[in-house]
């Protein structure tokens, strides 16, 4: 998975999610989820990392199960099963809802945990013709992210030290971050320009991100697979 072209991988997984959106089939959802997990483990994603990331997803899935279970198309519902994609069976309906959460999470993790962000942006630039300014602006913003997290902690610590308690997304906390982010963007843009980057002129590429035959095969295989399971 890690060697696939990121743009092609993105398109492939987008196609899969598109098919999932129009199918109400727990078997298909669970099959997609199982395949994603297998692909993640084959791609040497640490089981511990995956386990931790899956925790909130499992919670959401359990929640969705009970939502589906409680609101199945029985007599108490003001709608009929024929009107909406809601089953008469409570368990089936619950599993269908929960498995959707798992399938979407699986596809999302498969992309994010097996894709290098630099390669991804370069691939989007090359294959999707993303403007250079956007591509490198995105990378620069990514680079600033750890600092933004640090700044957020620093601002919270400042409030705490002054005996003020604020909730995590309080505007009082966000205001200093907004002021600083404007300054950071200006400084970063100047630093990038001083290294010869203009966003408009021709550049060479050290890592040329190409689309290989395997990327097309992956696309065809995935789309065919979800179509087969859908039937």
């Amino acid at each position, binding site marked *: 998975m890690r060697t696939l072209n990121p743009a092609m991988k993105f398109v492939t997984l987008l196609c899969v999610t598109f098919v999932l959106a129009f199918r109400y089939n727990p078997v298909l959802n669970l099959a997609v989820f199982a395949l994603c997990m297998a692909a993640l483990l084959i791609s040497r994603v640490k089981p511990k990392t995956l386990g931790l990331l899956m925790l909130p997803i499992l919670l959401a899935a359990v929640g969705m199960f009970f939502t589906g279970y409680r609101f199945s198309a029985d007599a108490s519902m003001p709608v009929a099963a024929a009107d909406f994609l809601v089953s008469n069976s409570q368990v089936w309906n619950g599993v269908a809802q929960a498995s959707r959460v798992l399938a979407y999470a699986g596809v999302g993790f498969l992309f994010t945990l097996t894709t290098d*962000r630099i390669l991804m942006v370069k691939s989007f630039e090359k294959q999707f013709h993303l403007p250079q300014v956007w591509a490198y602006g995105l*990378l620069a913003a990514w*680079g600033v992210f750890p600092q933004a997290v640090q700044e957020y902690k620093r601002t919270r610590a400042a409030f705490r030290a*002054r005996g*003020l308690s604020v909730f995590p997304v309080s505007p009082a906390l966000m205001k200093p971050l907004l002021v600083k982010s404007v300054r950071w963007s200006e400084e970063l843009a*100047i630093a990038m*320009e001083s*290294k010869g980057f203009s966003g408009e*002129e021709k550049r060479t590429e050290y890592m040329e991100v190409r689309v290989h035959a395997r990327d097309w095969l992956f696309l065809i295989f995935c789309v065919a697979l979800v179509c087969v399971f859908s039937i």
Partner: protein
Amino acid sequence: MSIRIEHLKFTYFEDRKDILCDLSAEFDAGEITILTGSSGCGKSTLLYLAAGIYPHSAGIRRSGTVSVEGVRPDSLTPSKRCHLVGMMFQNPELQFCMDTVEHELLFCLENLCTPREKMMTQVEEALAFCEISHLKKRTLHSLSGGERQKVMLACMTLLSPKWLLLDEPFANIDDASARMIAGKLKELNRTKGIGILAVDHRLENWLGIADQVRVMENGVLRPEVMDVSTLDGALLKELGVIVPGEAYEPELPAAKPGEVVLKLRHLAVKHENNPIFTDVNADFRSGCIYAIVGESGCGKSSLFGALSGLYSYGGQALLENRELRKLRKKELGKVGFVTQNPQDQFVSDTVREEILVGLKGQPDAEAKTEEILRGIKLWRYRDISPYMLSQGQQRRLGVAALMAYPCKALVCDEPTYAQDRNNTAAIMDALCRQAREHGVALIFSTHDRQLAKDYADQILELKGGGLCVR
């Protein structure tokens, strides 16, 4: 081969006075020139104009010209300009757009349209020149300030401009890294003929490197051309420059060591499972001033971060025998901290509220606020946002806001970062007076050894994972 400036008038806002007032100068590429002067005298502005960043990014050039090797740098596109002038900035954290050292250097070469097959060899050479080959695969955010500036120097080596402009490149790095970078700059000047023009408040790192020192004052260049070996100490001191070997001469009451207020026992901090320091032990007494020094990356900021609640720590940090991390909300103000950037401390919408927060509940809070603000000459700005103040004013407000609290310990991480001599002395005088008069334990970190020597009762060095008395 020179930078020529003729009758330059420049302002940041149409309705404000000129920051550069009919300035004319010429700097020769064969010499390493240091431009110095007090904060706000216009030296960084001049550098940004020579780099072609202004007026394109900010400000208005009212009249005059700036030319580098006979070319106006602001008339060139970034890809052409980088062959003419390169720039190293003060803040090493905001100079990179890629994730690793290797990718950042490749980014520079890609901008220069270097053929792919030549790129890696050039990257290796630049890293070897800057003695950072071991950092090639490291992520940039994991590097210390000194290491980042070395990476920036490697970028500049790759870009190989005709002129290299530096805006206080050593403001936040240790002396050893600063000396190493200064030595490399001299090598670039002498062997590759790259002209060097640097702006700096502190001259000690340039001794033996710079050929001449020029001083700016109120937007004009003074006529004196000083040799680093024959610096006019009295003049520089008067103009707010930090002169090597010149003491700060603080006028402080004698220390009256009180009780131990802050006790550190086996304090340890780690980032992403890498231990930063493992066994810090120290006692800090009320009314005493402590300086913490150490090389870049030794963990000074992590130590201050742990004390200010930014990082979790192992071991014990006891404030009046109570664990710091267990202090109740009402007691949190007992440890005040001053950050490198005063903006990190602001919690209110106006200057007045910034002081009032600390006096909440006191009957004469309004009167005391007025007294404090008048004392730091900020009363006229009481209803504006703290972010609208100048950097020096923000720093004064930050320190004054903490003085409104009944602090037991004041933890200051590089409180004089990028300040000129006069501001440095004013900040340290205010902090130290607070420590002496109110019996506060003042702990500050600095790269300026003279500052540590002149203000601290005890100098502690963070080295090898522990803290030792120097």
